[in-house]
């Protein structure tokens, strides 16, 4: 089975400002998967998505959809559907006309169009809004209209460009859940662009981490989280980010939740790396305690680190106090001092 979407050596070079927005990307989606393109603003993820959609022409490289090269084909011929950040609903058209708009190109029978539109609208729970204009809808409802408009085209792939970023924080969580359920029910391959690592971790079957137009890592959320390919991925994913401690030719990394007061670590003390820290500040966030501290024992003097103590751990910690914390050796990661790329384990004890 051919990949639904595959890009090979894809590059996009903008003459204006001499920007390499996308710089040699190879990605292949798996059938029915939820692939998330994650990266900071300006990393090229949206440009990559727009090239797959056919809204931008690549400077170099190939785009394949369903096994066929689609370079040069207009968007309408690619069998894709896209949901935009602003939803891009046609403001002068009713919800029904918005949803039927893509069908007019292919489906001539007016009743068939209506039927298909109401099917999509019912699926997304917007059946009662069909006669309204987009400006009378809430953010969440607009998003569903945009999804319905994408859905009626029976695309082989959904392209979603930060569809949650226009929603307020509260709505975003429920909308994220809806998006995931929606895709699971349809089973359509989806490429989703976001700069929010929480969305990426929550939605993606696999995450593609992008920086400066290059893919830094592709993997399942838990893999990207616990085995980051380099220091960028390590610090971009996870909040607070992975602690990185400079040890001359290499960096020592561990996640904040893996660094706990030694009394909370259990009995198998053999595999523990003990860390004497000076605690400066403690934040209480959703029950967890975030401990901001410095340590001199691991590498450079007064290296900053953050420990996250889950609500279930009762160990006492106090501000402005020296205390002993510890990290399991299996939770330690090592990165090259120059390139930031993850390397094999090194001895941590002197």
């Amino acid at each position, binding site marked *: 089975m051919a990949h639904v979407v595959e890009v090979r050596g894809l590059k996009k070079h903008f003459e204006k400002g001499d920007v390499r927005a996308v710089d040699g990307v190879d990605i292949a989606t798996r059938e029915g998967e939820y692939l998330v393109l994650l990266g900071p603003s300006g990393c090229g993820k949206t440009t990559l998505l*727009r090239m797959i*959609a*056919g*809204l931008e022409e690549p400077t170099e490289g190939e785009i394949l959809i369903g096994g066929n090269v689609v370079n040069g084909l*207009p*968007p*309408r011929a690619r069998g*894709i*559907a*896209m949901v*935009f*950040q*602003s939803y*891009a*609903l*046609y*403001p*002068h*058209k009713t919800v029904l006309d918005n949803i039927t*708009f*893509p069908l*007019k*190109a*292919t489906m001539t029978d007016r009743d068939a169009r209506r039927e298909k539109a109401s099917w999509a609208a019912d699926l997304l729970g917007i059946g009662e809004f069909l006669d309204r204009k987009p*400006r009378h809808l809430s953010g969440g409802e607009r998003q569903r209209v945009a999804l319905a*408009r994408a859905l009626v*085209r029976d695309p082989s792939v959904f392209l979603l460009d930060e569809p949650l970023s226009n929603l307020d924080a509260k709505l975003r969580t429920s909308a994220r859940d809806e998006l995931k359920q929606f895709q699971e029910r349809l089973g359509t391959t989806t490429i989703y662009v976001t700069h929010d690592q929480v969305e990426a971790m929550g939605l993606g079957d696999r995450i593609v981490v992008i920086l400066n137009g290059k893919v830094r890592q592709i993997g399942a959320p838990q893999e990207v989280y616990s085995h980051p390919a380099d220091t960028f991925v390590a610090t971009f994913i996870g909040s607070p980010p992975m602690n990185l401690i400079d040890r001359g030719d290499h960096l020592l990394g561990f996640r904040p939740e893996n660094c706990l007061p030694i009394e909370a670590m259990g009995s198998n003390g053999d595999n523990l790396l003990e860390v004497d820290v000076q605690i*400066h*500040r403690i934040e209480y966030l959703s029950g967890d305690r975030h401990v901001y501290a410095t340590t001199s024992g691991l590498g450079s003097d007064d290296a900053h680190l953050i420990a996250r103590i889950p609500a279930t751990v009762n160990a006492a910690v106090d501000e402005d106090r020296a205390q002993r914390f510890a990290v399991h050796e299996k939770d330690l990661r090592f990165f090259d001092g120059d390139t930031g790329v993850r390397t094999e384990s090194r001895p941590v004890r002197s």
Partner: protein
Amino acid sequence: MTPAHRADEVGTVAPDTVTRVPEPTPRPQLARRRLADREGFLAKLFLLPTVAYIIGLVAFPFVLAIVFSFSDVTTGNPSLDFVGLRQWRTILGSRVFWTAFRNTITFTVISMALIVLIAHVLATVLVKDFKGKWLVRFCVLLPWTTPVALAAVSWLWLLNSIFSPIDWVLRWFGLIEANMYYLGRPVLAMGSVIAVHVWRIVPVATVIIMAGHMAIPGEINDAAEIDGAGFWRKLREITIPLTLPISAVAVLFGAILTFADMTVVFILTRGGPTQATQVLSSWAFFKGIEGGDLAQGAAVALFLFPLLLAAAIAILRAVRRTEVM
């Protein structure tokens, strides 16, 4: 205390020292500051020139024109005697008046249709990115920046009955055999007046409509493209509906500029041949100023006012109804 805390304190102290209220100062300085702080007074002060301008150069002549139109004042006999509706009856009974009225409508409607059409086409081109765009933009704006006197000379030459370069080119291509006498034949003269007027107004209309084109979010155009809309369908279902309000504004501006305009007529034809290009505003000028019959000129000019007002209200209403965002 952590470094962060200390930094915070410094941050809050510093602006305080800068804006600390100075020791009691001498009176004149305080008084001046109070004057500048009196926004109500300042507002009146700054509005004064505008109000004076409007009263002196718009309201006063307007009222004067109304008064004149009910009198028998002429440049030769400036005494003001009221004659009721006599002037109005005279102009409404005049054949030239109705010709001018018809011409004004023809002139306005055809000009506006052409202006909106051309402006939309130019705007569509100019919002795209292409090499040499600055040059095209510059050329499009050129007619607007050309002084009327200069433009008049060029157009009079282009449309000259004997030396017209347009005729010359057409003859060279073998399309015509004899000169066209653009300004000497009724239909061609009106055509010429419309052409020159369109040439003058298109730049403004283009700029206004271009703003409308650029105000359409890029993602909407992308969405339409993904949804399979071709050029014509996008134009019909997306671009035209979404630029309708701003097109209406352009039409309103253009219509007022066209309806009340006499420059082009005055320069090219002076209303001729045989009143074929006479419009109400030019006729008002010829009657009232050149002919010296101030009362009739005022009546003709005032005849335009309710029409313009009605058009403005109708268009603004339409804009509000079609407001889409």
